């Protein structure tokens, strides 16, 4: 692309690119466009091969000049992937396999007939739905941070420019003073989407108030919460939008350099981000004297090396500086003394992805969406025991019930909903009684959990809450950096106490100790990791005290998850004496005589792996 050297050239580019993208979507000139999901989830499900096959067949049939094939960012509805969308009809095919490609090309692209069996079927009405917007999963969503997901090719600057890209940057550089930008963000009510919920505009104001020869913007893409993939999907789908947000932050408080800190586990996001930075440098949208306005900005990328604590902003800064990712005491806050000692604002990916939209539509318009204390939208990664696993963006104030049942499609297998964990290992679980809570930063805290970065894991009656609490504590123990003792020793001890309980060695005294330790760890740890580490314990204890008691007093795990407390039995009446279980048992602890004597499990040797129960075709094996 030629250099974009002035606002006028940018305007011209934007109008050209917009026209081109619109032509693609509306099928101008009889052309058609095929979009295939190129998010991590669908790529793992062969979407790359699907694209290759599409291209091959289209070329073979001599249709290359009429039909284009592109990958786009995450469609969000990951459990139904891979997706193939066709413009201009806007037909959406789901769960497409490489073997389906031929039919899509032959029936739809050539003969104009919809391939019925690849359409989404509404589980309630059993009707086939051809268009994406008509699917219930999408109806209640509002896409701001996910702008461009499933529409634009994340590798093409032209498509970003054709889909509102860099309009906001142009506006701030040519029409607004830095202070006006900060005021606009403050007025919009935007709060940090990484979990803390600190007002973004105020953070920028702190950094603006400090005089310094050098300032930095850091984008936190170290998405460590297990089960959360919002930031990854945004970076994979529209990296330009996040870079634009970062540049606007830089303009607002006088920074000319930005660092992205992204998990090394996200190779596709990293690749697309690097590509976007390169394309912008070549187009003159990054570098010196951007758009001829005298504004300079450069972007760099640093990879995380696998440490959850680096999501904490001061630990993240240490990691960029090449040190162990241990948190620094605050104050001084990074906005005053951050990266290499210079004023730095650390903003989450999703936060920066909302900035451009706020500038484009104005703070007042943005603030119309949401609740009194939390404006705009929030992206959630719905996972666990839920039908529609995927990425959803909903207005703040949506109820948990709507999130789980209307959008998430409820719990699979008619199982009973038990809890939803928000905020990951730092959050808490919410139960049936919380389902009508309107989601925002403050209500979730009041209910004993927190917003967190957006992971939302649904659990059903088959999950043991004590085991889940222990799972989170195992995670925190692993990830505690070891700098302060309340966290290093406290989390370890909590883990040991929980292990005692799940192994049937717990007493009422153990519970008391747990409560005390939770309090001590919370009040005395240096950073948020330790301060919130006990949240899953406190909230499961508050909501599922009876499960703790069952483990301690009855020595039973009601959900049959905790191995030490469960026993497998073969019902001699039902046993067909086929020996299948005995052959499958990895420790040879099942004995019997084929065809003659029913099989019996030697409880002293049984490792409770459950293989026998899964193997038995006659349902003769049960556990308690």
């Amino acid at each position, binding site marked *: 692309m030629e250099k974009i050297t002035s606002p006028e050239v940018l305007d011209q580019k934007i109008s050209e690119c917009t026209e081109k993208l619109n032509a693609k979507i509306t099928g101008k000139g009889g052309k058609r466009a095929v979009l295939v999901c190129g998010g*991590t*989830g669908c790529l*793992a*499900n062969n979407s790359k091969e699907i694209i290759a096959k599409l291209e091959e067949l289209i070329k073979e049939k001599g249709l290359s000049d009429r039909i284009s094939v592109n990958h786009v960012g995450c469609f969000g509805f*990951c*459990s139904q*992937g891979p997706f193939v969308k066709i413009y201009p009809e806007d037909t959406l095919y789901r769960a497409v396999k490489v073997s389906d490609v031929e039919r899509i090309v032959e029936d739809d692209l050539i003969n104009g007939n919809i391939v019925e069996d690849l359409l989404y079927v509404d589980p309630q009405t059993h009707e086939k739905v051809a268009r994406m917007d008509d699917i219930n999963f999408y109806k209640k969503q509002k896409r701001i941070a996910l702008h461009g997901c499933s529409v634009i090719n994340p590798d093409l600057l032209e498509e970003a420019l054709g889909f509102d890209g860099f309009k906001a940057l142009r506006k701030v550089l040519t029409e607004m003073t830095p202070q006006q930008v900060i005021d606009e963000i403050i007025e919009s009510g935007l709060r940090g989407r990484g979990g803390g919920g600190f007002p973004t505009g105020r953070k920028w104001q702190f950094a603006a108030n400090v005089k310094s020869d050098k300032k930095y913007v850091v984008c936190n893409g170290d*998405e*460590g*919460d*297990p*089960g*959360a*993939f919002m930031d*990854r999907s945004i970076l994979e789908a529209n990296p330009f939008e996040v870079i634009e947000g970062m540049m606007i932050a830089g303009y607002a408080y006088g920074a000319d350099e930005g660092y992205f800190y992204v998990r*090394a*586990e*996200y190779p596709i996001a990293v690749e697309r981000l690097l590509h976007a930075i390169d394309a912008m440098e070549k187009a003159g949208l990054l570098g010196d004297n951007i758009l001829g306005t005298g504004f300079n900005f450069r972007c760099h990328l*640093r*990879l*995380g*090396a*696998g*440490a*959850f604590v680096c999501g904490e902003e001061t630990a993240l800064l240490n*990691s*960029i*500086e*090449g*040190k*162990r*990712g241990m948190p620094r005491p605050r104050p001084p806050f990074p906005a005053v003394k951050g990266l*290499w000692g210079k004023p730095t604002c650390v903003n989450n990916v999703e936060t920066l992805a909302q900035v451009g939209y706020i500038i484009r539509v104005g703070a007042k318009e943005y603030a119309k969406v949401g609740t009194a204390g939390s404006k705009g939208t929030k992206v959630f*990664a719905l*996972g*666990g*025991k839920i039908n529609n*696993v*995927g990425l959803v963006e909903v207005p703040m104030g949506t109820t948990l019930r709507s999130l789980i049942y209307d959008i998430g499609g409820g719990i699979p297998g008619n199982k009973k909903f038990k809890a939803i*964990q928000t905020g*990951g290992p730092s959050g808490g679980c919410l139960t049936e009684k919380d389902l009508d809570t309107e989601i925002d930063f403050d209500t979730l805290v009041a209910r004993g959990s927190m917003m967190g970065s957006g*992971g939302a*894991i649904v*659990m059903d009656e088959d*999950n043991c809450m004590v085991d*889940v609490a222990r*799972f*989170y504590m195992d*995670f925190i123990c692993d990830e505690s*950096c070891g700098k302060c003792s309340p966290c290093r020793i406290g989390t370890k001890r909590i883990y040991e106490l929980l292990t005692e309980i799940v192994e049937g060695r717990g007493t009422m005294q153990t519970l008391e100790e747990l409560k005390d330790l939770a309090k001590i760890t919370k009040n005395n740890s240096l950073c948020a990791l330790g301060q919130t580490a006990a949240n899953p314990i406190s909230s499961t204890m508050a909501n599922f005290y009876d499960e703790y008691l069952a483990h301690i007093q009855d020595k039973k795990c009601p959900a049959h998850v905790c191995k030490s407390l469960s026993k497998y039995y073969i019902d001699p009446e039902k046993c067909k004496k086929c020996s299948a279980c005995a052959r499958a048992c*990895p420790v040879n602890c099942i004995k019997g005589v084929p065809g003659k004597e029913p099989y019996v499990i030697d409880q002293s040797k049984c490792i409770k*792996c*459950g*293989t026998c129960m*899964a193997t038995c075709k006659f349902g003769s094996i049960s556990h308690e």
Partner: protein
Amino acid sequence: MKIRLEVIKDVREICQKHKDEPSPLIVILEEVQEKYGYVPVELQEVISEETGVPAAEIYGVVTFYSFFSLTPKGKYIIHVCLGTACYVKNAQAVLDKICAVLGIQPGQTTEDGLFTIEAVRCMGACALATAVSVNGKVFPRVETKDVDKILNEFRNQEAK
């Protein structure tokens, strides 16, 4: 352990390539880890000479981050996702099964140097829970009964 001369030369070159970047230590370590599969103490000393960062500090960084390894890994690195979404769908049982079949614990490598098992925290493929990947190839919705089939796929590749 004896490190080959050309490896040392290469690591020096990697250090030189990044010398003008601010605080490049982790960038260098990531490149060495990526290329050689581990960062032994001997190479840490080379990096220390080149960058001027004390060897003790480099050791501190290497042992802090889970991405870096002090020992060589197997030819096939198996990642079992233990993110929450996979965990609630029985990922632990899948991990246990793989460990039992290979006779090693997470973080260890089989004696023949073929497989390394690692329990990882969320690959972000939550819709595919339980997700298992081998050298980056993702196997979706893995259950304990699928384990042998997956391992055999790679054993057969070796046998060829």
